[in-house]
């Protein structure tokens, strides 16, 4: 599998990371290098092997569906780059 510049641009878009056009060839090369390394996995016979979901044999615990905290709006917003009137503020989302 070889990654071209348009695939690299698509991946950057999916990851929401701005990559300038002139940086795309180098990025595609890096991807190909890393994916070339990963290709070794194709040598392994994985027929009938389950993909690992949990490294320790334990089920996720359930807990009671109860409100245990809250009323900390100021703390929640304390680290926001832009908070106004008790909300997170972001640029305009719809026209």
């Amino acid at each position, binding site marked *: *599998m070889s*990654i071209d510049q348009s695939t690299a641009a698509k*991946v*950057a878009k*999916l*990851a*929401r*990371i*701005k*990559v300038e056009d002139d940086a795309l060839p180098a*990025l595609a090369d*890096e*991807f190909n*290098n*890393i*994916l070339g*390394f*990963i*290709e*070794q*996995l*194709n*040598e*392994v016979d*994985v027929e009938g*092997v*389950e*993909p*690992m*979901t*949990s*490294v*320790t044999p*334990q089920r*996720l*615990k359930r*807990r009671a569906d109860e409100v245990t905290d809250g009323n*900390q709006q100021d*703390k*929640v917003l*304390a*680290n*926001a*780059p*832009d908070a106004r009137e008790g909300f*997170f503020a*972001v*640029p*305009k*989302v719809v026209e």
Partner: protein
Amino acid sequence: MTELNKLTLAEARDALRKGDTTSVELTEACLKAIDSADALNAFVHKTPELAMERAKAADDRIKAGDAPSMCGLPIGIKDLFCTKGVPSQAASKILEGFKPEYESTVSQKLADVGSVMLGKLNMDEFAMGSSNETSVYGNAVSPWRRGNDEAQLTPGGSSGGSASAVAADLCLAATGTDTGGSIRQPAAFTGTVGIKPTYGRCSRWGIVAFASSLDQAGPMTKSVRDAAIMLETMCGHDPKDSTSAELAVPDFEAMLTGDIRGKKIGIPKEYRMDGMPGEIEKLWSDGAEMLKAAGAEIVDISLPHTKYALPAYYVIAPAEASSNLARYDGVRYGRRATLDAGDGITEMYEKTRAEGFGHEVQRRVMVGTYVLSAGFYDAYYNRARRVRTLIKKDFEDAFAAGVDAILTPATPSAAFGLGEMTEADPVQMYLNDVFTVTVNLAGLPGVAVPAGLDSQGLPLGLQLIGKPWEEGDLLNTAYALENAAGFVAKPQQWW
């Protein structure tokens, strides 16, 4: 008494209990050492006022006769741990200015027993790196040098600041985290002890997430005994981490008898890599001889899927990272890029993440995005998770055949120079983790123990891998190895 900052946790604890010193004195000695060690760039956020406050409280507690082992002992905390009111940036620009409103479970446990946080320690950005060169704070520097050569060496990564600080006696011990070797590799590079416990032993709550199925916290210390003392404090069930194990935490220190007679130690043939330096090879066989002389039985074993651990890791870890790091969007915390007129929310995300994430982090997030994307999920991500199942089974088979622990080198080389790997492709850097990454994929405990010096006078470490939840037994084997190796070298102070 030797200088107080040079004490081990155990020595300092015993001195405190006897009344030979105070936590305030210990803390002052460490703060002084830290202030004269800016050249190491290990401590990146210093918290002297908080430290003195905690030291005084600890002294009161010791006087009152209520003193757990770690009470009054000054330690450093890796920047990956959220610490209330103290910058916690994961060494990333994107978390500039972030001061958590809460405390990670592990650092809270350490605070609850009265230990004294001196400040936050340098690391690779989001723990992604093996040399501490991806940090927004700049490189952490190893206190070790190649003889009289002034070239700066890496303390390893990602817990590079922790390793440097402990090796240079800036603190008595430090926390680290380990996703693919980030405790054990820096410990090996700096002649210190580092243990990654079984996945689920330490709560991950409040630790900035990199790859959630692999991340574990652990102690970085000057001795195996110290590792036992500190690990016990860090472990334990936490309802806030659903993968945290509901198991009792034993008294690890009490399990250090040094008696390993009859233990079966496996030597995996697949860890004998092509091009492995002769010094590493010799260290490994010397280590096996030491354990044999202490009464253990040495057996050759096979872990056939070892070769595929690194490529599987470089699918799974970036995949999880791309998901975990989606939260850095410039909205809830950290840093938002300056926007141009007319920029909408997508531009805000894209610019914020392009400016805020360093090169290696961007690369891993994008690789992770790719392997999880439609059409490639099965070919990459699911295949890697299947290989992970096989890697874990390799270890299970070895343990089922009666092996108690596995001995391997900790790293394929001694520490390299800062900047020496800049031109190398990323895969070359990833090879640093070749002996450690299997342990994360299998969820097992692994410990790095300093075992010798190379011809240039740099520390080399051996790794012992144990059965799940058997950290006590593993530490006891490590203790026997430490006793036999008799590693006492310290870096010459140049900083």
